[in-house]
């Protein structure tokens, strides 16, 4: 393997990681900070992608598509919070699991009902398409660089909001003791609606951005959902920095694992067994990583120790 290929693969790993972070960003708010297990997060991601695809299809404008994704998912988020989630904060994780599982069913089939059963089209806008050459002679799709930028920007913004602003402090206080922060005069319900729909908007944005290079279809949110949970848990719930590092770790493990595990195994067995065992190991790799990290540090890399 040449050095350039290795470098490119590492870059791919990082890029995949940041893309995961982009997808996990909204969940970091809702799950990481507000402490709500929202399985329907993947649906919000899907709603973003679908509304972007629909608007892009009608207007041909990517900017309008992104705006549509933001609005639609934020609105869906606010609605869901007001009608359902609001009644779940005081209940335990299990009720949250069941209710948001129900929401997945409703959203997935609802989307299929509106948009039909076939995948939708959403493509990269022309100015951002095609590869650019970056130092080191690597050709890299421009759009992916844009995704990296968006991911980093959002992570910094979120980190700042949660750790430094008063709103961030209040949300975290609400996560510890909702009743008490309300008794101190903070409209925590309103605040949570706001944050939830912000989280939803981020999910929708990610859906639209990532949807342009993946397939926009019903059910696209669930695999992402699991990965996003993995990322957040590895980093430690509640920590934005953790989520970012978790995302990078997962991205690198996944990318490099699928390349190197088969190669490594080729040293000991014949090539075709090696590729098959290697790639099955590599699909397990991130879960093995997560398991190992949690066994080593039971509250993730940057989680608060109990």
């Amino acid at each position, binding site marked *: 393997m040449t050095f350039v290929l290795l470098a490119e693969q590492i870059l791919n790993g990082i890029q995949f990681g940041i893309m995961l972070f982009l997808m996990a960003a909204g969940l970091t708010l809702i799950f990481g900070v507000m402490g709500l297990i929202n399985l329907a997060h993947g649906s919000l991601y899907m709603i973003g992608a679908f509304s972007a695809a629909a608007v892009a299809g009608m207007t041909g404008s990517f900017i309008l598509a992104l705006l549509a994704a933001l609005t639609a998912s934020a609105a869906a988020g606010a609605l869901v919070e007001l009608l359902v989630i609001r009644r779940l904060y005081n209940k335990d994780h299990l009720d949250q699991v069941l209710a948001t599982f129900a929401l997945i069913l409703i959203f997935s089939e609802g989307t299929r009902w509106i948009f039909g059963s076939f995948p939708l089209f959403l493509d990269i806008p022309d100015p951002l398409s095609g590869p650019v050459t970056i130092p080191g002679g690597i050709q890299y799709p421009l759009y992916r660089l844009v995704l990296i930028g968006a991911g980093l920007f959002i992570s910094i913004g979120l980190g700042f909001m949660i750790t430094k602003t*008063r709103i961030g402090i209040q949300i*975290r206080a609400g996560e*510890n003791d909702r*009743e*008490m922060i309300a008794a*101190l*005069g*903070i409209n925590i319900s309103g605040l949570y609606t706001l944050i939830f729909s912000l989280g939803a908007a981020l999910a929708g944005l990610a859906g639209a951005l990532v949807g342009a290079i993946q397939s926009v279809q019903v059910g696209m949110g669930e695999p992402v959902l699991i990965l996003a949970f993995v990322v957040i848990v590895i980093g430690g719930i*509640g920590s934005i920095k953790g989520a970012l590092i978790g995302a990078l770790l997962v991205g690198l493990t996944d990318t490099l694992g699928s390349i190197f595990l088969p190669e490594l195994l080729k040293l000991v067995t014949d090539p075709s067994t090696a590729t098959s065992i290697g790639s099955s190991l590599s699909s397990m790799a991130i879960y093995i990583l997560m398991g190992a990290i949690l066994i080593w540090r039971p509250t993730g890399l940057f989680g608060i120790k109990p």
Partner: protein
Amino acid sequence: MSLLQLSDVSASYGASQALFGVDLDIAEGQVAALMGRNGMGKSSTVKCICRMLPSSGHIFFAGQDITNMPSHRAARLGIGLVPEGRRCFKDLSVYENLVAAQQAGLWNFAKIVDLFPRLGERESQLAASLSGGEQQMLAIGRALMTNPRLLILDEATEGLAPLIRQEIWSVISKLKYDIGLSILVIDKSLKELRSVCDKAVVIERGLTVWSGQMKDLNQDVAEKYLGV
């Protein structure tokens, strides 16, 4: 004019009723003691005032009917609570606990640190790892930071060292005499209550059984309802 007025307030936890008719009245600038044995409904009364427990009857604060108001709006009218059991935000630092619900006014972070220097020393420590007494100071500081018109202290001296306890009592007097803050205190130290409070309300099994000026709370009443 009375600042806080409860008339015939009753409340339940699910199926079990805790309050059966509490009457209570605090005038602007008054310091009142809420007394009674363990489990008689003192804290439940406080929860009703702060709208953390739904209740029937009437609760007026600063001329407004707050009986059905959501908790945060009642608090915004100027009720500051130091709850039983402290309830600090455990994953927040001391500083964050204090500024979380800050309202503009007399009290600010610097003033609180003046009052409890220990909190200044622990500024960036997480509340969960504070000692019991430190958490108590934090809870008091946090309530003051909302610059309330009525401060409610539910067993605020529990677990405090005698020296600090004296300090808290002197803070209470200071708040009373210097800025005329209205205060509702629940505490077990009769001696301090007598020296600071203007009036007393005694509840038994969720019912107001005695209320009046503190100086009128004689030995008979104390023995009958408080067991001293």
